[in-house]
């Protein structure tokens, strides 16, 4: 079964999968037994998937992370949590749909959820501004974080954005201040914060809701100081250097573990989260719950300090 917007390196796998589908159809229609052939092809497809997806280049990871079929924040909210109630608005200017927030239950835990919201098609992407927040999105995040603290509820954030929106209105209303203030509030909030990077972690717009006691990242997600396209344009002055930029930026989950920026990689189903969203959501849920359990043991007054100590260690220099 071909997935909408499939990537070049997925094509050979999809060809085999199409063949399998065809043979199954023939088996049914003409009552010929192809089960041996199908089995062989399935083994081959599985091997191929493992081969391709365990050796993705940084640029291929970027494409995976941006895949429109990839489960989004809204998908995880639907699949992992129950009784989600969306909370809207920053109480200052307007409701920014590029960031979704609300309350929900996760097994026995009552939690706050804050995440970037991307669409699945042109219409919804326009509605959510492609997941690129304005200042009011970050100010909504601040409002919800303060509310979570007031009622001692853990916060779970989902990161998936190309970046904060670069526009006239965003600048007029203080995009820089909004991001900085969100960082400040998230650094001091006295409840557990779990950050999950599910897709594209684009620069300051991602980082703003990215301070946490535990930072988890999906296997094929990326997280970078700047998009490879932006980096190629600025440093190389040549948009064709995007792939090289992606390689240099060290933006994959493995890179981020090595650099000690994230705590844990959440394995994805073979072939990527977009191929089996349900399975992916189970893995994400398990990781979040085990983090919640761990963080319950830490006295609430020490949570902010724990986050600070984690941040404090990040940096490499000669003394």
């Amino acid at each position, binding site marked *: 079964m071909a997935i909408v917007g499939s990537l070049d390196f997925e094509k050979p796998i999809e060809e085999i999968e199409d063949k399998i589908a065809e043979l199954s159809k023939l088996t049914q229609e003409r009552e010929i037994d192809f089960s041996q052939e199908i089995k062989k092809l399935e083994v081959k497809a599985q091997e191929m998937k493992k081969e391709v997806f365990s050796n993705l280049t940084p640029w291929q990871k970027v494409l995976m992370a941006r895949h429109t079929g990839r489960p989004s924040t809204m998908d995880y909210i639907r699949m992992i949590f129950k009784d989600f109630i969306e909370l809207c608005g920053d109480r200052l200017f307007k409701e920014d749909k590029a960031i979704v927030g609300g309350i929900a239950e996760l097994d026995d835990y009552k939690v706050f959820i804050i995440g970037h919201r991307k669409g699945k098609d042109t219409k919804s992407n326009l509605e959510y501004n492609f997941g690129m927040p304005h200042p009011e999105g970050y100010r909504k995040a601040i409002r919800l974080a303060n509310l979570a603290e007031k009622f001692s509820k853990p916060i779970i954030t989902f990161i998936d954005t190309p970046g904060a929106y670069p526009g006239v209105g965003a600048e007029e209303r203080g995009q820089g201040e909004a*991001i900085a203030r969100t960082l400040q509030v998230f650094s001091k909030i006295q409840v557990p914060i779990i950050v999950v990077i599910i897709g594209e972690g684009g620069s300051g717009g991602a980082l703003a809701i990215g301070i946490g006691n535990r930072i988890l990242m999906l296997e094929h997600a990326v997280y970078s100081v700047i998009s490879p396209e932006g980096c190629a344009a600025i440093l190389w002055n040549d948009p064709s250097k995007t792939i090289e930029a992606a390689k240099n930026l060290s933006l994959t989950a493995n890179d981020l573990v090595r650099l000690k920026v994230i705590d844990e990689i959440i394995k994805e189903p073979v072939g990527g989260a977009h191929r089996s969203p349900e399975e992916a959501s189970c893995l994400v849920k398990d990781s979040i719950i085990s983090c919640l359990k761990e963080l319950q043991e830490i006295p609430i007054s020490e949570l902010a300090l724990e986050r600070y100590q984690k941040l404090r260690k990040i940096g490499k220099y000669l003394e």
Partner: protein
Amino acid sequence: MVWFRKPKYTIVTPQAKRAKIPDGLWIRCNDCGELIFKKEWENNLKVCPKCNYHFQLRAKERLEITVDEGTFEEDNKSLAPIDFLKFIDKKPYKERIIENQEKAQLNDAVITGCGYIEKIKTAIAVLDFNFMGGSMGSVMGEKITRLIEKATDLKIPLLIVSSSGGARMQEGIISLFQMSKTVAALELHNKAKLLFISLLTHPTTGGVTASFASIGDIIIAEAKTLIGFAGPRVIEQTIKEKLPYKFQQSEFLLEHGLIDMVVNRKNVKNVLGRFLHFFC
């Protein structure tokens, strides 16, 4: 006899006229394009006397005009960047570091330390745009964080003079996290009820705007300073429109409620002193 004679003119070639100006005596204003007598410009703290454009200052020059003479003591001078990602764009980062260190006579893009401003002891960080566009990598993040922690320990006010293109791409994600590190340190300084003044100088953009620079208790900008999160070129490409001339200049930020005041360079020290004396 001819009563009316055509007057005779000597033709002065432009080359001949130019040749009379010795090199290095004049400079051209980046903003209005006028020629300025260099001596006058220097006496005016490198501000154009014709249009009030504030030229960039080196970190050392900024300290000279801001801190009480002879009181500044630099900290962590030896901290230096390393190329831990082995980042190569047009040039290896390793080479860029050495080149910039030679050019700027600094280990990285910030000087930090303590000194007195109008007789009040203050922790001070000054960014230097001359070193890789004042970009924030590990060294800047660490030096600023240490400075803030020191200010919190000593219970003294903090001044950060910003001038930066943003996060340093050559240090990847680590440079991005310097934003959260410095802001988290600032929050502890804030919680201790200590004053933080952010002075924005030309230009302040990107990751520096989206971290410490924008959350001062008091935010002051020098006149005609470019301040923003996204640079004007990126915005123009996004919205496919030309931006107005004043967009993202300090006066524009004042109008939109993002800063407390716009100050001319010659008054900056006096204004800082007044705030420090009021709050400390």
